């Protein structure tokens, strides 16, 4: 009976892992990169000076620019520049689409700044998967819930965790993949469990709304108001310019203490009923609690101040903050990044293990899994690298530049998947791994050789060194894998 129990759960681990594996691989890789989302933002906007920012000035300049260039928008959403993220990201609705611009914290204008989604791309891709709302998010939360199933059954499947942990047999084909998979899985198991569960929590209102709807007798609007308290004033139709925003930002900054400002939202800009809501930035505490102040945009008067106090919402915010690594200093951020890399590698080795265990080279299913594995495990990182390279190679003033950068990524990925599908299987893996190694190694080369800001010094600071060094390390890892696979033909 006990042996049957373990067998059933091992079976489930293998098959559930396969079904959700490619999706989880993409989510884990993009999520790992978005740990350093602000640093990637900085890297992808080399024109912007890095370092301390006058946030009040940046906010005032951004709203001044928006007042002339997005006057008709129903609302402006502003992610204010800070010490980590050197540009202000503004977005607003235009028709049925959202438009975004990276604005200078000094002038408020996008002129002279290459338009790029930067690290924001990986962050959005991590849970929206480049799909229309709500499908990407639903897929992501289902994947996270399935990841919990895979992890729990994995603990049972690889139950002799500590025995297995100390036996790493290298160069032995299937045994080596299994040992690698178990070591990667076990070493960061608490992180894997935490990130899967808190990942579900970030999208819980979409995935499991029934409790809330029952408690509120189906009144969706009342539930939303309680979940995300905000001051709502309908548009009046009477135009009114925005009152000077500098005093509002100064007052908010003073109230937030050292946390700084993270976002400024202006609802109904240019209308008598305009509301400016300023939210506090990150604090060095795990339980990041919402803290914001709303102002009457026409008079500058304070309308209300909100600090989250409700216990369950504070617990929810704690779990949310854990997923985002919001409390994290530089050391914890590196810990999240390395754990995320281990998770990505555990998923990749698990997928490879599925084919390594079943040596039936003529089966269609086996070939399909093997080729998809090559297109995802080697093709995806190559495509991500192309995205960073495109950022350096595309002309700065190209129209729709940010969209073209993303398109480069997906064209490269599509090409890799096609190559994996068509190429002789004896060569597909090592050649794609080689391409991934070359693409990653090309990132620092493109960075160092691209012309930097005219007249400005090449900013070889922590961000540049960090991104380029990680790219080189990943390139070395792929080169090593390509070399290993060369001996075994396929993994």
């Amino acid at each position: 009976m006990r042996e049957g129990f373990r067998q059933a759960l091992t079976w489930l681990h293998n098959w559930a892992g396969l079904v959700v594996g490619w999706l989880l691989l993409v989510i884990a890789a993009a999520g790992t990169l978005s740990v350093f989302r602000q640093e990637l933002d900085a890297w992808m906007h080399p024109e912007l000076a890095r370092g301390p920012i006058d946030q009040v000035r940046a906010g005032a300049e951004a709203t001044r620019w928006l007042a002339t260039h997005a006057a008709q928008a129903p609302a402006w959403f502003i992610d204010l520049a800070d010490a980590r993220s050197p540009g202000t990201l503004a977005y607003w609705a235009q028709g049925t689409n959202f438009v975004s611009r990276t604005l200078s914290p000094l002038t408020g204008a996008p002129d002279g700044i290459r338009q790029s989604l930067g690290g924001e791309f990986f962050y959005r891709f991590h849970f929206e998967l480049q799909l229309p709302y709500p499908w990407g998010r639903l897929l992501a939360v289902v994947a996270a819930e399935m990841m919990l199933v895979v992890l729990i059954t994995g603990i049972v499947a690889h139950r002799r965790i500590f025995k297995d942990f100390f036996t790493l047999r290298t160069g032995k084909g299937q045994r080596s993949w299994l040992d690698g998979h178990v070591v990667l899985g076990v070493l960061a198991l608490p992180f894997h469990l935490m990130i899967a569960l808190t990942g579900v929590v970030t999208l819980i209102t979409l995935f499991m709304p029934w409790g809330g709807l029952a408690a509120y007798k189906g009144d969706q609007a009342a539930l939303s108001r309680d979940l995300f308290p905000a001051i709502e004033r309908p548009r009046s139709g009477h135009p009114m310019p925005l009152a000077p925003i500098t005093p509002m930002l100064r007052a908010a900054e003073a109230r937030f203490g050292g946390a700084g400002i993270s976002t400024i939202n202006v609802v109904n800009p240019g209308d008598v009923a305009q509301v400016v809501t300023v939210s506090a930035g990150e604090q060095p505490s795990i339980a990041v609690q919402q803290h914001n102040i709303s102002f009457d945009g026409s008079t500058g008067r304070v309308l209300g101040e909100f600090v989250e106090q409700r216990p369950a919402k504070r617990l929810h915010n704690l779990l949310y903050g854990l997923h985002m690594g919001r409390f994290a200093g530089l050391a914890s951020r590196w810990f999240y990044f390395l754990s995320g890399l281990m998770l990505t590698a555990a998923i990749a080795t698990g997928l490879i293990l599925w084919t390594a265990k079943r040596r039936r080279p003529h089966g269609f299913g086996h070939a399909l899994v093997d080729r998809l594995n090559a297109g995802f495990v080697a093709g995806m990182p190559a495509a991500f690298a192309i995205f960073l390279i495109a950022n350096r190679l595309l002309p700065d003033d190209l129209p729709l530049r940010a969209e073209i950068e993303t398109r480069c990524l997906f064209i490269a990925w599509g090409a890799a998947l096609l190559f994996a599908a068509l190429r002789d299987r004896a060569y597909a893996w090592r050649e794609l791994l080689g391409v991934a190694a070359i693409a990653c190694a090309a990132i620092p080369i493109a960075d160092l050789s691209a012309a930097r800001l005219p007249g400005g010094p090449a900013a070889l600071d922590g961000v540049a060194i960090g991104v380029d060094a990680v790219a080189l390390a990943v390139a070395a890892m792929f080169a090593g894998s390509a070399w290993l696979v060369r001996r075994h033909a396929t993994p």
Partner: protein
Amino acid sequence: MLSVTIPYRLGVASRVVAAVCGSYAVAACAAILLALGLPMDRLDAAITGSLTAVILMPFVAISCFWVRSAARAWAMMIGLSALLGVLAMTMGWQP
């Protein structure tokens, strides 16, 4: 996988459907019951209920694969959802 017969494959498919739909139904009913039944402010109860439900869900899904047969998996899923659903209705839930 010694003998992969058609009844075996149908049994697996049936368990998969029971696990996916059943675990979601059980979790949703648990969320509703807790949201209505917990002695707290209604928003706190709703959040606590939803958090409990999503933690419960993977274990319920897994249980569909270790019970003896697909029929038992279905019986368990339907039984649990019905039990939780009826209890929620006594708390005033109107489906």
